[in-house]
Each structure stands twice: as C-alpha cells, then as structure tokens.
C-alpha cells in the first residue's frame, strides 16, 4: 500500500505530508513534521498530553489518524505564541510555575486555549471539569488552575484574580 498524501493547515501554514495509514496525527506531527511539542503520554486518550485543536475543536492527536487530517486546520502548542511573544496562557503558566517536569504542559496549554476561546469567563469548576482530560502527575493541579483563571482574566482585560 502506498503512502497517503495529505494536505492540511498546521499553525496557519499549508502543510503537506506523506503518511502510512497506521500513523496517527501525533506520529506525523512529531516524527514527520518535527513538531515535538505535542507529547505521547498514554497513547490511549487518557492523559491529554497530545492535545491539539482540529477545526476549532480540542482533540487527542493520538486518537486521530494522520490521513484524517486531510483538509483540516490544526493548531499545536507550537502555534499558540505570536512569534516570540508568549500567549497569555503560556505566560501565566510560567508566572505561576504551573509545571514541574513539563511533560503535560503542552497539552494543558492547548486545552486551556481551547477552553478560553469558547468560554472567556469560566468558573473554577468549569475550568477543572474541562481539564479533566489532561493529567499532571507532578503539580497537583492547583497552580495550573490558578494560571488558567489568571490567563482568562488577563485575556478579558481585567486585573489579576485575587
């Protein structure tokens, strides 16, 4: 079986790649396109470290075939910052030191971006519920949630949350 030719838009750039049917989108991102920000944690959709935004929707790239990306618009963690300027979500994660080993961080950044794009003013409960599909085994989540809430406030143009 020959490789499939896929045309897609990744982080704003039209991107073409060849892939085998059995390669996941995560495999393609990391191994073919050198976009290694998305991580493979569990490889079964439980940990969210591979989270990307596909056509505006947060999904696990480990549960999507590379060939399924045909014609889709994909945003990975590499596409969150504006050039050298960090996105408020990224800046607040740094500000709160909302990471230790950092392996889960790209997934949290992407998932938080997707949350705040859809709901600019989430309650803490809503933020925790939304992020249930992103596992962190280091920080215990509280610093992550504080970073998310402050990023939301910053993006709304409000002063920092108390």
């Amino acid at each position, binding site marked *: 079986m020959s490789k499939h030719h896929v045309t897609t838009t990744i982080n704003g750039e039209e991107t073409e790649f060849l892939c085998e049917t*059995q390669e996941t989108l995560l495999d393609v991102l990391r191994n073919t396109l050198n976009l290694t920000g998305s991580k493979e944690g569990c490889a079964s959709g439980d940990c969210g470290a591979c989270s990307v935004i596909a056509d505006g929707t947060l999904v696990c790239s480990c549960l999507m075939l590379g060939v399924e990306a045909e014609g889709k618009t994909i945003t990975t963690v590499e596409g969150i910052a504006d050039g050298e300027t960090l996105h408020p979500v990224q800046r607040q994660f740094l500000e709160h030191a909302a990471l230790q080993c950092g392996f889960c961080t790209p997934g949290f950044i992407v998932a938080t971006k997707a949350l705040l794009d859809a709901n600019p003013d989430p309650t*803490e409960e809503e933020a925790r*519920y939304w992020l249930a*599909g992103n596992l962190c085994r280091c920080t215990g989540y509280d610093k992550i949630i504080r970073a998310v809430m402050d990023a939301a406030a910053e993006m709304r143009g409000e002063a920092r949350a108390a």
Partner: protein
Amino acid sequence: MNRFEYIRPATIAEAVAAAAAPGAAYLAGGTNLIDLLKGGIVRPERVVDVTRLPGLDAIETLADGSVRIGALVRNADLAHDPDFAHRFPAVVEALLSGASAQLRNAATVGGNLLQRTRCAYFYDVASACNKRTPGAGCAARGGDTRLAAVLGWSEHCIATHPSDFCVPLVALDAVVEIVGTAGSRDVPLESLHRLPGDTPARESVLEPGELIVAVRLPADAASFAAHARYLKLRERTSYAFAVVSAAAALRIEHGAIVAARIALGSVAPKPWRAHAAEAVLTGAHPDRAAFRRAAEAALADATPSGDNGFRIELSRRVVARALARAAAGTPARLPALPASPFAPAPGGLHA
C-alpha cells in the same frame, strides 16, 4: 497497529459496500477504534472512514414529534444543544459524565453505541478472551471480577457494556436507524446489542457492512423531562468509566407516578432496561420505599459472575438513589460534575 487499507467513501451506499467486505471496520470518532488498533486487539484489513459522509450530523425534530440525532453528531455537540438538553436532560447528564472534553469532542453518537467493552482481559492480548478470539476461553472468569457483569452474562463472557449515553437512551425507548447492503431498517436500541451466550464475539445484531445512520427518541420521551436523572458511580470523581450507573425518568401527576423508565449501565453486556422495576412504580407514590422495591425488582435476576456480589446491592442503591433524584426534579442547571453522587454543594469550588 497493523497496516490497513483506508477508504473515505463519499456516500452512505459507497460506505456500506466498502464495509461489507470481510475484515472491514468503520472509523468515526476513533476514540475506541484507534485505541483497539494500537493494542492489536482488532486488526482490520480495511478501515472505512465515515466521518465525511454528508447528512449525518443533524439534530432534527420530525413531523411526529420524535427527535432524530444523526450518527455523526459529536457527543459534545449533542450535549450542548440547548433544545435537546431541555427535552432530554438525563441523556445530556450521561453524555457530560462520560470521558473528557477531548473525547466528547471526537466521539460520535453511532460510535458510542458500538463501543467495545472495557474488560481488562479483552484489552490484554496475552489473556484468553472469547470476544477477541472465539473459543479461547475467558480469563475474566476466576480473575478480577470487580467490574464484571451481574446481569445477562454467560459462562463464556462476563464483560460489561460501558456506555453512559446508551443508558438513558434505552430507558427512553430510543430506536436505531441502520442502513445496509439490503436496505434500511429500524432496531430498538434495547435489541441492538446481543447477550453473549456462547458467541460473545457477536456483540450486536448488525450484519456485515450495516451502518448506524441515526438514533431516534420517540415523541413521548420528552414527557419525562421534569423528572429525569442519570447517576454514575465511579472510582474517581471525574473522567472514569462507571462502576455502576442508572438512568431514572418519572412522570408524576397529582403526587403519583404515572410512568417510570429505568435502565442500568456497566452491569451487563448491554445497556440494561429494567422493565420489571418500572412496573413496580406505575401508580405508586414516589417515596423511598417504592424506590427500594423498584430497585429490588431491577436486580431480581442478578447473579454474581465471580467475587462481585457487592455489585448487586450497589446497583440496587444506585437505582433507588437515581429514582430519588429524578423524583426531586431535574435541576435547572446540571451540577458541575454531572451524574456524580458527590456533586458539590452550591458555591463549592472543586469540581
């Protein structure tokens, strides 16, 4: 993952023809299939990607008042449809109690119905499993049976159907629309899944190539909206499959139950409708004693499939509690942790 042929049909007819071949599998949201492919649990020769078939992603009210949900409607999109949520709150509560944001965004209505069991022995290719390899035996029997079936099981298979979504659907008499090479047909959701008997590998009544194109809820299913809940007991308070779950829906007039709908999840090889329990409640006063009698009736045929007798009493309590919640009334706003027995008090911060 084995290598396979990937086909993206343009029409339902093309899809059905492509999937009727031996060794073919449909791909929709992929949240279960890709996982199974990675583990080598299923090894299809051909994968038929139905996600771009036109016309299967609508939620519509038909002339007879029934609601038709296209098979490709994503779980999250259905749960966040305000009109659907207003009419079928228990279905939405079940959807929102399942999986994670990422998976609800990907998983489809049709795929949810056909998801495979979460039995650990099914996923472990080193273990004997009659579902994976007919005739191989069942390592779950005599193994860890903590989450195994107590209703509908056979000596050949004690795995459960893990869906949340299917539980209120089967309670509300959902009908599944199917298209195959021989035409289309309707099957009640209650009859879609087969009990394992001595052929546990055959999990549904679908013939090769048959495709679920929609799920319909009959007009009267919305008449339970004021008293409809889903209760899901799980081993952590978010993002886990159910240990036991129940959907309860009541129609209450002048202080008496005039109609009741009850179904259980994760206790049987299929979403388990409890008709006998419903009959107990018809005409009864909605109180604890009646709910306990209904729960006894719901589990009357239950037997342990191993060291899991506790699941029977646990199921009774979940049924009785789901009924009590339904009787108290559908909340105007779902709790932050849908279907949880530990829903936080108003103002509580931790979801």
